[in-house]
């Protein structure tokens, strides 16, 4: 129970702790994601701040009981605002030997292990690669081990319910949730309500899960074995209505919100790819919002269709992950040349090539920046956390529409699949990001000049089919300034190249300065972007907790950079750039500002831990 370890007092029955991180781990088939989500929701409703980290095996289902088949869900709950799912879990629920083996090394010193002993048979031990049973060989002595025959107990609980055998075992995840619910004194209702709602149509399953859940809870209440419960008080979060949201969900909702804020119908075209597919799934559910989802034959068709819809006057959106973004690049370049608004979302995963499809990484930044032929600048916006994806999406759409340009929005697998509480925004505060369509001639003799730019934004007018008198043609060949006719003139090409560049550069004046979260007198600044937000801020807090000074900038806009960035960086003796890549933002700021920044590169498919940032900062401040 990191940040406030208070569990070493055996006298008390219920202990107050500030934070606790629990990891549910089991086989892919054991329902651990569900277990984690249920515990999370109950904690959310109880009022804790929280952060989650689902970690599931790569795409293919691995054989039951093996290490590659292990699936886990970590949830960090706290009585104060927290930022990461916790560096080390305090509690590990291990449903089988493989889950124990795969996760043990992460567990906090002297942490608690809750073990489903029924799964520790010969067969499973061998599958997990254990030669001796770890429950017997003393290898867990440094931990507090609680052995629970969950399968037996679940079966017993279900006796008479009509559900038995293998089917009964399916409910064992609810048994585990029940036990943890007791141990951490969560309310029972949210989970019971969820079960009732979800399985309304399957009364047998409903009854079974309820029984298992209660049995788990009751085991805690009634047995000697568990001497302790822990209580994590509600966190004093800012007042408001909260929900628990994943990044993909928030992003999908952000797309709908952007359509409303722009007063445009949304056209979302996509080809499924991990970890972006859930955005498609979410949007497909909401036809009543008028959202058109189009599952294309491939990524090129998806971005092509979104571009066609943009030409038609819709908010054209497409989402993918790295391999798909690579495929879309030629079409993005067409969007850039035709200067049509288009929102391209990249939920980054581990690369290169197919890489680590279910893991997280931030290594597509340079591709977003430079992955097109010719001079083809475009704005890049990033989301920093699951809930932040909502606002980031609206902001990306705002820029696309106002500046008539494709925009790349970077999220990542960690943001996309993990969850955190989100204070619901007041939708009346959504910015008005609508832009008027051109409806009349803008040239001499009532002609329409599709490349006559707005003098302030340098955006060209958006004249959509159906508008009388504005019939015009656009395309990928170099355009003549103002008229948009094809032009091979050398001077015009240079002028247009500069105009496209200036238009994007000019957005810097239309975005907020980077916020410098600085201690007076700090000499080290840490510069981050994207999903490392939580870990960096938590790391910074720890450093501050040690009485040291540090400054922090977290970027939403990666192209153009905020106007004050160069100046801000130059004020610090050392600049640290932690990234889940080999130093991509680092290269950009070096080239842009000639600042001798230090990179902190982590490429493990895993998010930063607060402790890692803390340690690195200590070293630099040192």
């Amino acid at each position, binding site marked *: 129970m990191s940040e406030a370890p208070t569990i070493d007092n055996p006298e008390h029955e219920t202990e107050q702790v500030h934070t606790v991180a629990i990891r549910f781990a089991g086989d892919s088939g054991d329902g651990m994601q569900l277990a984690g989500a249920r515990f999370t929701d109950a904690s959310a409703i109880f009022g804790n701040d929280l952060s989650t980290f689902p970690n599931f095996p790569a795409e293919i289902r691995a054989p039951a009981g093996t290490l590659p088949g292990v699936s886990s869900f970590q949830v960090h709950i706290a009585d104060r605002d927290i930022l990461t799912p916790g560096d080390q879990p305090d509690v590990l629920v291990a449903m089988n030997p493989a889950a124990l083996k795969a996760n043990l090394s992460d567990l906090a010193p002297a942490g608690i292990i809750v073990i489903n002993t029924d799964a520790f048979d010969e067969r499973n031990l061998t599958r997990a690669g254990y030669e001796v049973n770890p429950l017997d060989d003393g290898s867990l002595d440094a931990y507090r081990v609680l052995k629970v025959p969950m399968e037996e107990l679940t079966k017993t609980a279900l006796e008479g319910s009509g559900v038995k055998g293998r089917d009964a075992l399916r409910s064992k995840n609810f048994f585990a949730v029940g036990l943890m619910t007791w141990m951490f004194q969560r309310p029972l209702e949210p989970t019971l309500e969820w079960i009732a709602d979800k399985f309304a149509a399957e009364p047998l399953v409903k009854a079974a899960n309820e029984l298992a859940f209660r049995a788990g809870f009751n085991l805690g209440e009634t047995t000697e074995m568990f001497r302790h419960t822990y209580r994590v008080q509600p966190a004093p979060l800012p007042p408001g209505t909260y929900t628990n*949201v994943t990044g993909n969900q928030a992003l999908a909702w952000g797309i*709908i919100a952007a359509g409303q804020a722009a007063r445009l119908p949304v*056209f979302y075209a996509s080809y499924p790819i991990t970890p972006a597919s859930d955005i498609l799934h979410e949007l497909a559910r909401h*036809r*009543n919002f008028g959202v058109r989802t189009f599952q294309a034959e491939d990524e090129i068709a998806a971005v092509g269709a979104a571009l*066609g*819809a943009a030409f038609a006057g*819709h908010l054209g959106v497409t989402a993918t992950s790295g391999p798909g973004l690579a495929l879309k690049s030629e079409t993005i370049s067409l969007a850039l040349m035709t200067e049509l608004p288009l929102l391209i979302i990249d939920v980054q995963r581990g690369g290169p090539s197919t890489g680590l499809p279910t893991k997280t990484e931030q290594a597509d930044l340079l591709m977003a920046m430079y992955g097109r032929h010719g001079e083809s600048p475009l704005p890049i916006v990033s989301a920093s956390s699951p809930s932040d994806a909502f606002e980031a999406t609206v902001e990306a759409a705002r820029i696309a529409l106002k500046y008539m340009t494709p925009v790349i929005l970077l999220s990542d697998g960690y943001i996309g699949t993990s969850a955190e509480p989100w204070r619901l925004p007041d*939708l009346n505060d959504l910015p008005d990001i609508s832009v008027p369509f051109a409806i009349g001639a803008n040239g001499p003799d009532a002609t329409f000049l599709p490349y006559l730019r707005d003098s302030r934004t340098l955006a060209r007018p958006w004249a959509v089919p159906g508008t009388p008198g504005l019939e015009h043609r656009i395309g990928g060949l170099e355009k003549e300034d103002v008229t948009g006719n094809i032009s091979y003139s050398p001077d015009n090409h240079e002028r247009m190249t500069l105009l496209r560049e200036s238009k994007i550069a000019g957005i810097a004046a239309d975005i907020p300065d980077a916020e410098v979260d600085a201690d007076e007198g700090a000499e080290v600044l840490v510069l981050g972007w994207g999903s490392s937000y939580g870990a960096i801020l938590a790391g910074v807090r720890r450093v501050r907790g040690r009485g040291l000074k540090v400054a922090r900038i977290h970027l939403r806009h990666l192209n153009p950079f905020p106007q004050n960035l160069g100046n801000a960086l130059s004020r610090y003796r050392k600049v640290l750039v932690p990234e889940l890549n080999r130093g991509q933002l680092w290269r950009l700021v070096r080239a842009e500002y000639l600042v001798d920044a230090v990179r902190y590169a982590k490429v493990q498919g895993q998010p930063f831990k607060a402790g890692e940032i803390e340690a690195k900062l200590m070293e630099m401040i040192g």
Partner: protein
Amino acid sequence: MTTEARYTRQDFQTDQEVRWCPGCGDYTILASVQNFMAEMGVDRKDIVFVSGIGCAARFPYYMNAYGMHGIHGRAPAIASGLAVARPELSVWVVSGDGDAMSIGGNHLIHSLRRNINIKILLFNNQIYGLTKGQYSPTSETGKRTKSSPMGSIDFPFNPVSLALGAEATFVARTIDMDRAHTTEILNQAYRHRGSALIEIYQNCNVFNDKAFIQLTGREERDQNRINLVHGEKVVFGPNRERGVVIEGGTARIVEVADIGIDAIHVHDATAPSAGPAYALSRLSHGPFGPTPVGVFRSVDRPVYEETLQQQIHDAQAKKGPGDLGALIASAGTWVVK
């Protein structure tokens, strides 16, 4: 979509210089299309031409309507987005045999199976014109070009067969020189609900001259041109003395006198099975002998964007129009005071 607006061909001309080689078949097709657009009666503002890259793909610049000159091969994808977003528009794709069948093959077949309401004009000159004369996926085997100096070793597609294999609901073939026939086919395609593939044999007089001479030459055409007319016997020849029979799935050319007119196949473009149309498409594999032209197939099937629209209506009828506030609160909320 149709209005009182009445146009002449000139109304569809633009101020852009037409930049095809003198004598190129594209000019004729442009004239036919402009003429047809004037007849079609759709308001100019509601017409969109989308193209890829190639000589043919320059087309939108010369049509006074909305237009996008896209990138190579992607026009069907772009047009699909357009048409699905705005079903009230009249969306036309212009593409070459390289653009549509080589790099763009995947988008072509998928837009056909989805039956999105786009009309795809495939200018088939059996060559890559714009890049100066390489063989294309419709070039005949053995063709010597810059990229195949010893003769191409690719077996070509038959665009009509491919479209039928891809579940197209409307498939036709016509010839640049025959403007009346082209216009008639355009008209039928326009009236068809859903996607349409129209293969237009187009002469590239610079890199593949006379490729279609068997169908356009004064002497040759009467011998070789098989007009498919819905509801009529498939007969051809200077004196309509030859005909087509389909037996066991195979179409064959016969002398009508040998077999009797009753045995001759009656063309039914609306046949429930695509089998007969496919059989007819196999009569020729390139315009080198007797070759059918006309509408091979024209059948009804739900149009993608109409069904999508329907789902939106149904969802709204059931759940009401979207309420964003309710949506973001839908996964359960709690209140912090």
